[in-house]
């Protein structure tokens, strides 16, 4: 996927975030979101124990003991706070994070997400993915529409290991925005010049189409 498509996804997700929300951003496209928030102020939370995470510091200010969950150097925003890992996940699992924006390997048509393991591959990492899926108030998936090998990511039923029973609220891809409500998937917006038929071709999941999109 091109950088401009990645930016498109990041920008569209940025629109979903509301002033003052506490947000946890997964690796990949989600980390680009802060660049597209404009004047909107959100509070970024990092699993390793920081609320109020600011942008990458200048080289000379880098401190590898002030890092994000992706282990990248960061800074403090005004009003930041530090805590240990158990308190960090109390915040996440306890429903105190307004939005988690996560990547995904697959999302099924009910909104169930697979984002930690590929069957048959050596996967020895889960990190905080399952905690975020279980605990965040809203879950937005930011992902390419299809896998690198062209296979659909939006599937009728997960074939990859699930990250939890809790469903995503929304998925934003380079082509479209879908919402999930009560186990059903709805196309709410088209973001590229793709036709609905073409979209259906690359989307294994069944979805309904909101009137305004038709």
């Amino acid at each position: 996927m091109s950088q401009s498509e990645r930016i498109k996804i990041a920008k569209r997700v940025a629109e979903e975030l509301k002033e003052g929300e506490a947000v946890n951003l997964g690796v990949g496209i989600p980390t680009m979101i802060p660049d597209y928030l404009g004047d909107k102020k959100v509070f970024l939370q990092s699993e390793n124990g920081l609320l109020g995470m600011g942008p990458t510091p200048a080289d000379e200010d880098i401190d590898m003991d002030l890092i994000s969950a992706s282990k990248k150097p960061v800074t403090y925003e005004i009003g930041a706070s530090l805590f240990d890992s158990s308190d960090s996940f109390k915040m996440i699992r306890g429903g105190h994070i307004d939005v988690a924006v996560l990547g995904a390997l697959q999302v099924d048509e009910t909104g169930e997400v697979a984002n930690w393991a590929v069957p048959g591959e050596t996967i020895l990492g889960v990190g905080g993915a399952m905690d975020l899926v279980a605990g965040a108030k809203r879950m937005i998936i930011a992902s390419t529409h299809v896998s690198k090998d062209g296979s659909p990511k939006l599937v009728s039923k997960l074939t990859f290991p699930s990250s939890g029973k809790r469903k995503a609220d929304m998925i934003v891809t380079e082509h479209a925005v879908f919402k999930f409500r009560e186990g059903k998937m709805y196309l709410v917006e088209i973001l590229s010049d793709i036709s609905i038929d073409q979209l259906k071709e690359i989307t294994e999941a069944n979805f309904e189409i909101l009137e305004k999109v038709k």
Partner: protein
Amino acid sequence: MKKLVSVKDAIQLINDGDTLLVGGFGLSGSPLTIIDEIAASDKKDLTVVSNNLGEEGRGLGKLLVAGNLKGAKGSYFTTNRDAVKAWSKGELEIELIPQGTLAEAIRCGGAGIAGFYTKTAAGTKLAEGKEERIFDGEAYILEKAIKGDVALIKALKADTLGNLIYDKTARNFNPVMATAAKVVIAEVDEIVEAGSFAPEDVVTPHIYVDYIVMNRYIKKGGRYVESV
């Protein structure tokens, strides 16, 4: 200061086959000096409980290379290719635990709580073999407390009693691990007089800390580098 010991003496407290709780998130907040000393020793069959296994050949990654390890429990090993390889060859046992469950299980280990019902991982592969129970219509799984024989933690400063404070996000798993092992060894950059920390500032009260070791690394350009 009676808790201060040399790193050589400190690692004598570790026995072959022990379970070690080791602080850190990647290399940040990791007791690098103590880890080096273990890697240079013939300690074996150790099981490390830590979020990661350091990086390839760095931090806890050294113990893998040096052959001190039997197993590792943590949330993320994918980026340490040595660990992935060792696991594939059957040379390293790995237990994968969601990061929040790991933190909470260790906290419970130190808090006299034997187990807890969490919603994280319910219904997933990582819940296999675990008891599931419904509370208020939602599925939770039972996770048991994790304890260690020895905890190796990293703090910024200790006072002469052993009270600890941590550096920024290098705090991570260290305070919970300090509560959940029979012996707790803290590596620190500096020791200050008791009374230097305001009662509000102490993160780990001294009764959790058995021994203090001085960090041999020094910080340069925002990273710990080996001092000459």
